[in-house]
């Protein structure tokens, strides 16, 4: 599962900026709770992506509460495309294995 939280975070932030709690809720909603991670572990991933220049953050006051909003940078978009390609290739390969050797022979 290495790289999965990173991929999901980058994909979700491609649409709009979000703060940590919001991101975790979005991951839970979109994966229908299939991907469940300890909610706090999202922050080291966010901080790491920010350090690499894939994200930028800004503290904002919303509804009387201070939150750190994260958004994607151009480098983050490139990283998202790279990760998406790798992930698509990997899932394709796994699908092929799961379909079994008989299916491969038939083709």
């Amino acid at each position, binding site marked *: 599962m290495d790289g999965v939280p990173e991929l999901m975070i980058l994909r979700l932030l491609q649409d709009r900026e979000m703060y*940590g709690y919001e991101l975790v809720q979005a991951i839970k909603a979109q994966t229908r709770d299939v991907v469940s991670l*300890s*909610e706090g572990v999202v*922050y*080291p991933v966010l901080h790491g992506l920010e350090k690499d220049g894939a994200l930028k953050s800004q503290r904002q006051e919303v509804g009387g509460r201070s939150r750190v909003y994260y958004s994607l940078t151009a480098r983050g978009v490139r990283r998202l495309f790279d990760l998406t390609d790798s992930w698509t290739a990997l899932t394709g390969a796994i699908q092929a294995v799961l379909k079994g050797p008989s299916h491969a022979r038939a083709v």
Partner: protein
Amino acid sequence: MPAPFDALEDRLLRGGIAPRHVKRYLRELSEHLADLTAEQQEVGFDTEDAAARARAALGPDQELADAMLKQRDFRSLSARFPWLVFGVLPPLAVVLSFVMWVMVTVLVGVSSGAIIPDHHTRLPLPGWYDWTASVLMVAANFLIPCLLGFLLAWMAQRQRMKPLWPLLGMALILVLSMHGRFHADGTGRIFLYLGTILPIKGPFGPGGPLFIHWPTLLGQAALLFLPLAWLLRMRRKSATPR
């Protein structure tokens, strides 16, 4: 009662994560925890249950710590290169601060007209400057090692490092033991004696080896190692269960 992330903070700092990254992580975790607690209260749980469920959803300390410790880039300089921070930089800092202090003393004299930078003009120094320069030099002798000692102890405490590291830095400062003495005679001649226990011959002092003023040295040693006592006391305090 311990705060919700005290143990996690301790674990991260011991793991070498830089304090500023730990602070930021804990702040965002606290904000997330507040959101989770509010969410549980909206569902109908009372304050205590909501807080417990929120904390569980956030993740166990071990997992939260491991996620951060995996990010090697967030390690502090002193965790990555303790020999540099506690072994190389302290002696350098002593020499630099001492040289700067001497320069400030001379600059004060020149800019106020107390010292005339001309070898042919010899005027007795004004009494106030003689006094100020002597006080500044005594302050340098005792303040610099004391401040550096506290800095090392504070850094070690802040980053939960072994007391052996600041002890190494303090020992190296003591080996260098730079100290000085200002003296002006009635004809305006200034003598600036610099001392160290290292066996170096230098251009300072009355033409011989650098002077060693043992009472100053002993005072420096006492002030230097005083912060170590503070550090050990803090360690003992944090080791006792809250």
